[in-house]
């Protein structure tokens, strides 16, 4: 694997760590199996790309992309909380609806961002190669996001959200409005995923309506790899685990695809992903089995 391919994998891993943190919030904190992310990731990419092309400030465009992601999460939460649709099904409904929405937003299946000013543009051309600038810039954003999410989960509000996912009956008895926390958590989760989508579009120079397929699997893979590496129950370590898991996942994929011995092609990506996630799920179980025996 060349250095450029390695840096590219790190960069992509960092972009997807926003997805991983979003998935962690939904699946682990709220106990809400949310597939909306497969739609909110390309939604973030589409909204940011279209606005940037229309001449908006890329930071503002990204903020609006996040708001769009939050709105998508709120739709899923409404279907579940207000209309009592099973959480998984509610999220699938939003996900397929978003496919059409994304096509509407872009007006075509994909848009290119070549020669447009992105959030990264001001940092280019100061002597450091773009291959370093991109992961560094996104890395800084990731650190900020990890800190903010961690600080939120340590607050009274965040604690109430954790209780909502872990024991809703107890949460209500302690005066926690569990419905409100499902809305809030789903909005936050999908806003982070849309941020990942927006950064994906800006670093790769395009937004594509099909780029969301399998986002949830990638996000879950990162969360599970992180949990396998850090056994800690502490929230901060779980969040750091999401980031490290996401980056390691991309490096592993890159290694698998670039090794000549395995003879894999880019089109084998989904198979490799499934095998990696399955391994990440099976390994801790094997280890536990041995400990019990």
């Amino acid at each position: 694997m060349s250095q450029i391919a390695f840096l590219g994998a790190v960069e992509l891993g960092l972009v997807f760590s926003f997805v991983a943190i979003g998935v962690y919030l939904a699946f682990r904190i709220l106990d809400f199996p949310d597939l909306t992310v497969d739609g909110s990731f390309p939604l973030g990419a589409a909204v940011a790309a279209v606005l940037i092309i229309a001449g908006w400030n890329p930071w503002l465009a990204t903020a609006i992309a996040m708001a769009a992601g939050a709105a998508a999460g709120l739709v899923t939460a409404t279907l579940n909380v207000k209309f009592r649709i099973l959480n998984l099904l509610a999220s699938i409904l939003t996900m397929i609806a978003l496919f059409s929405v994304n096509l509407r937003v872009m007006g075509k299946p994909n848009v290119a961002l070549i020669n447009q000013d992105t959030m990264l543009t001001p940092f280019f051309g100061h002597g450091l190669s773009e291959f370093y600038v991109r992961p560094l810039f996104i890395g800084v954003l990731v650190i900020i996001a990890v800190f903010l999410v961690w600080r939120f989960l340590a607050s009274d509000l965040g604690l109430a959200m954790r209780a909502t996912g872990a024991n809703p009956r107890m949460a209500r008895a302690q005066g926690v409005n569990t419905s409100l926390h499902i809305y809030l958590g789903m909005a936050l989760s999908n806003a982070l995923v849309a941020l990942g989508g927006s950064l994906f579009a800006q670093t790769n120079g395009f937004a594509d309506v099909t780029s969301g397929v399998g986002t949830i699997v990638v996000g879950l893979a990162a969360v599970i790899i992180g949990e396998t590496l850090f056994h800690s129950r502490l929230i901060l370590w779980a969040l750091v685990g999401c980031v490290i898991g996401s980056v390691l996942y991309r490096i592993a994929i890159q290694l698998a695809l670039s090794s000549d011995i395995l003879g894999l092609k880019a089109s084998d990506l989904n198979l490799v992903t499934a095998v990696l996630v399955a391994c990440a799920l099976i390994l801790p179980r094997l280890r536990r089995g041995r400990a019990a025996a």
Partner: protein
Amino acid sequence: MIELSNLSVIFGRGTPLEKQALSGLDLAIETGSFVTVIGSNGAGKSTMLGVLAGDVIPTSGRVAIGGRDVTRIATAQRAKYVARVFQDPLTGSCGALTIQENLALAAARGSRRGFGLAIGSNRREEFRARVAELKLGLENRMDDRMDLLSGGQRQALSLVMATLAGSEVLLLDEHTAALDPGMAEFVMELTQSLVEKHKLTTLMVTHSMRQALDYGTRTVMLHGGKVILDVVGDNRRNLTIEDLIEMFRKARGGETLDDDALLVS
């Protein structure tokens, strides 16, 4: 002051499984009293507690706490006035959170939850002191997850949690039923002292007639969704467990006391 007036609850209305859990129940409880509630299975004890907590919305009738009509107010909004300890220790506390976090969650009951740190140094000290009062050594395990503790320890902490934030009413739903006898007695003594210290209006549902008479200031027996016995003061002091069993039998139309005989202890 708690007022339950003409309270009816019908589950599964209009279905073959229709069940009238409460039928025109009236009960007024003055502030500061500790009422023990007994009755056979299906008498409506848990439903009555559910109506007070907000988990069950009555089919008809009125619920008032401290003069406020709370009949249709949701559980979470009502939690400001109502603290609760469940029968199952796993329900009343959150296994995935630490002891400290559970206490922080309870301390904010009834107040607005914001972005302030849930566990600041002030609260840390206060929680430690409150937990140390239990003399279970748990004050040195504040960062342990709740699911590492025994049922009794969790129930004791649930009681502390119920008294951290101010409330007017304490609801205890057979909260010692899942514990071994030694721990059950410890938790009952703790209940007694906390209720006295915080001057809480308390309703305790119990299956143990001994508990029903040994603790509290008033005993109420439910049957068929109504109050069929209500004793306080001297009448209550002179009441024996045998008397209660006799009343049970009468209430059931002279049936023999098969399984209930086990509940005397």
